[in-house]
C-alpha cells in the first residue's frame, strides 16, 4: 500500500494553471476470447516473439503506459515473453497476467521482481484468479479450496501425494489472492533499499512461509499491481490493494458511477485518489467517416472466430467500444477523463494489419493536441508513467 507523501500529493493538485488531467493508455495483446480473426493470415503466428515485439514497438511508439499480456490457451507464458520484450523496448511498461490460485508467493514474487530488474523498473502484475474447479487438475494443489486450518495438511509428511482433497471450505480464490499480494509485498520489502537481505516470515490463513528472499529490492520497489473486476468484492480488492483496475462498462454513465464508487472506497484504506488508476477496457474501430467506422466494425464482427463479442457500436454488453472517426474517438476519450469516468483506457486492438498502429498514428496525435496525453516519456519506470508513488519501504 502506498502512503503518499505531502510533496507527492501537492505536485498533483489541480491548482496549477497549466494542469490538465492526463489520460493513461495501455494495450492488451488480444487473446483467444473472440478478438482473434480467423480469416486474417496474421492471426496464425501469434506465438513467436515477433508478434509481441510488433505490438510492443507500436505501443512504445505511441508512448503508451504499458502493454498487457493475457495468460491462457494458445499463448506463451507471459512473464517469460515480457522478459524478452524488455530487451527490445526501453520505456514501455510490461504487465503480465498471472494467476494466484495455482502459484506460490515465493516463486511468483521472485519472477516478478526479476522482471522489474530485467526491465529496469517497468514490471506490472495483473492479479488473476482461476476457477479451481476448471484448472485444478493440472496442479499439485489440485482442486483444493484453501484450508482454514493449516495444521491438517496431509502433505506435511514430505513426498506424500500433495494433491489435497477438496474440503468444502468457504474460502474464495480472491481471499487467497489478497493474501498472495500482501505476502509478495512483504517479500519485495524484505531487502533493505541499500541491498541487505533480511529474513521474512509470514503466517496467515493461506500461506505459512519463512526464509530469505533471493532478489534485491527492485527498481520500482514493488512491481505495479493491477486487478480487473467489476463486482463489489472486486472493487473492494482494488480499493484496498491494486494500483490499476481494469473494468468493463458499456456507457459513459456507468463508467462515472463505477469511478465514483471505487475512488470513494480508497479513503477507507488510507489511500489517496491518485493511488488507484481506473482504466476501462475498450475496443475501437476507426474510419474516415462515422459510417465507414460502423461498416468496418460490422465487417470485423463477421470474421470473428468465436461468437460475436468484438468491437461493435456499443452492442456488446459489458465492454465499451469506440467506433468512429479519430476526432470523435479522441473526443470521447477526452470526455471520459474530463467527466470522471476513467483515468485511462486499456485498448484491445484488433489483430489485423494496422491494429494498434492506426490508433497510434491517428488518435494519439489528437490526444496530444488536446494536451491530454504525453508527447514524450518523462520518466523511465512504469510508476512514473502512471503517476504512482514509489511504495514506502517497510523494513
Amino acid at each position: 500500500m502506498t502512503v503518499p507523501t505531502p510533496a507527492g500529493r501537492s505536485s498533483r493538485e489541480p491548482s496549477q494553471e497549466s494542469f490538465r488531467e492526463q489520460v493513461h493508455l495501455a494495450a492488451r495483446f488480444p487473446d483467444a476470447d473472440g478478438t482473434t480473426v480467423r480469416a486474417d493470415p496474421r492471426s496464425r503466428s501469434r506465438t513467436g516473439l515477433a508478434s509481441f515485439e510488433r505490438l510492443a514497438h507500436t505501443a512504445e511508439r505511441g508512448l503508451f503506459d504499458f502493454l498487457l499480456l493475457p495468460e491462457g490457451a494458445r499463448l506463451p507464458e507471459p512473464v517469460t515473453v515480457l522478459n524478452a520484450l524488455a530487451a527490445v523496448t526501453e520505456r514501455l511498461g510490461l504487465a503480465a497476467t498471472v494467476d494466484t490460485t495455482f502459484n506460490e508467493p515465493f516463486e511468483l514474487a521472485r519472477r516478478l521482481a526479476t522482471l522489474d530488474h530485467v526491465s529496469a523498473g517497468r514490471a506490472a502484475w495483473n492479479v488473476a484468479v482461476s476457477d479451481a474447479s476448471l484448472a485444478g487438475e493440472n496442479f499439485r494443489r489440485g482442486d483444493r479450496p484453501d484450508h482454514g486450518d493449516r495444521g491438517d495438511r496431509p502433505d506435511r509428511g514430505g513426498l506424500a501425494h500433495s494433491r489435497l482433497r477438496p474440503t468444502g471450505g468457504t474460502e474464495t480464490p480472491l481471499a487467497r489472492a489478497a493474501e498472495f499480494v500482501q505476502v509478495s509485498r512483504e517479500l519485495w520489502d524484505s531487502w533493505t533499499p541499500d541491498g541487505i537481505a533480511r529474513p521474512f516470515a509470514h503466517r496467515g490463513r493461506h500461506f505459512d512461509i519463512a526464509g530469505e528472499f533471493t532478489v534485491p529490492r527492485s527498481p520500482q520497489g514493488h512491481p505495479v499491481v493491477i486487478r480487473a473486476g467489476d463486482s463489489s468484492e472486486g472493487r473492494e480488492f482494488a480499493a484496498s490493494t491494486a494500483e490499476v483496475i481494469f473494468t468493463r462498462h458499456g456507457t459513459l454513465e456507468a463508467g462515472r458511477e463505477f469511478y465514483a464508487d471505487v475512488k470513494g472506497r480508497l479513503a477507507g484504506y488510507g489511500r489517496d485518489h491518485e493511488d488507484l488508476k481506473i482504466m476501462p477496457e475498450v475496443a475501437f474501430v476507426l474510419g474516415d467517416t462515422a459510417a465507414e467506422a460502423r461498416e468496418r466494425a460490422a465487417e470485423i464482427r463477421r470474421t470473428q472466430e468465436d461468437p460475436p463479442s468484438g468491437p461493435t457500436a456499443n452492442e456488446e454488453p459489458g465492454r465499451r467500444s469506440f467506433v468512429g472517426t479519430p476526432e470523435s474517438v479522441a473526443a470521447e476519450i477526452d470526455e471520459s477523463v474530463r467527466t470522471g469516468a476513467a483515468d485511462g483506457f486499456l485498448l484491445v486492438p484488433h489483430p489485423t494489419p494496422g491494429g494498434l498502429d492506426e490508433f497510434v498514428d491517428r488518435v494519439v496525435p489528437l490526444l496530444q493536441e488536446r494536451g491530454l496525453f504525453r508527447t514524450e516519456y518523462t520518466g523511465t519506470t512504469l510508476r512514473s508513467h502512471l503517476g504512482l508513488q514509489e511504495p514506502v519501504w517497510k523494513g
Partner: protein
Amino acid sequence: MTPPNGRGLLHLAAAVDQEAAHDVSAHVELARLAESGGFDFVTLGDTFARSGFDALAVLARVAPATTRVGLVPTVTTTHTEPFHVQAAVATLDWVSRGRAGWCIDVSTTEGEARLFGRRHAAPVDALWHEAGQVADVAARLWDSRGSDARTRDEATGRFTGHDGLHPVDFEGDTFSVRGPSAVPRPPQGHPVRVVDATDRHARTTAARYADVALVQGTNPAQVGAIRAELQASALAHGRDPDELRVLAALTVDLGDGERAAEPGHGGGGPRQTAQGPLYRGGPVDLAELIAAWHGTGAADGFHLTPVEPRRDLERLVNGTAALLQHRGLFRTFYPGSTLREHLGLGRPANRYAVTGGTS
C-alpha cells in the same frame, strides 16, 4: 552425425553464472561472448537457497540479444508446478526461436521447503525420481498442443481437436497433470533437457530423460565410466544411447594466462576440489586437454565453468576454442539455428501426431 574418424563432433558449453548475480547486462555480454566462440550453449544456475535472479527470466532477456547460442537455465522441480515449469521452458524456446534448454535440478534443504510451506524436505533419491516424472510430463505437455491439423487419440484411435489438443492425463507419485498445455508446441518440439549426473541419485533420471548429461571427473576414464553407465541405462530404458550427449564438467581458472599448466593441474589433468574438478592453467593447455579427452571418446564435449567469468570466458573463446577451431576439432560457425541442431539431436516426433511428427 559422425565424422570419418568415428568420433562425434565436439560440443562446448559454458556457465555464465556470476558472483554478484544482480547485473543482467553482464549476463548478456557473457552470452554474446560465448556465441562469438561458437559454443553450443550457455547455462545459468538457479536455486531458491541463495541470492540470485530467476535464471529463466534472465536468459529470456538474453534471447533477443543473441541469435544462435543455446540458452539453458536451471529450473528446479521440487517446489515448483510441473505445468508452469514446462510452459516457461516452452516459452523460452519460442522467444529464442528454438534455442532453449532446461537444466533440471532439485531442492533438497528444509530451508527451501520453508519458502513454500507446502512440504518438508525429502530424501534426494525421491526428489530425483520426482524430477524424472516432471521431465517426462513436460515432454508430454510440449506435445499436447501441436500445430498439426489432425491428431489422434492413441487409446481410441479417434481424431481429436483441430488445434492438435491432447490431454496428457499424467499420474505421478506426487502430482498429476491432465493437460493439455496452454502453450503451443515449442519450435524444437522438445527443448533440450539437461541433467547434472554427477550425483548418483540423478543418473537414472539423466539416462531416461536427458538430452545432455553433465559429468564431473578429473580424468577421461572417470568420465567415460559414468558415460558408459548412462548409456547402458538409457538402452535399458528403451532409448537410443546416441540420443544422449555426455559433457565433461570442469571448473576452469585461466588466470595464469599462457603459462604452462601447473603440475597436477592442466598438465596432469584437473585437481579434485570441493566444487568439483578444477583445471588451472592456460587456455592453450586446456585446448590440449579437451582434444585429448575427446579423442578417447570419454565425452561428447565439455561444460566449462569459469571461476572469473569475464576474464576466463574471454580466454576460453579467444584461446581455447580458437585453437580447437584451428585444429578442425570445433565448429567455426553455426550450421544450424536451434540448440538441437548444434547438438546433432533430431527434432522429436510428436507422440500424439498421426503423420510424421511435423507439428
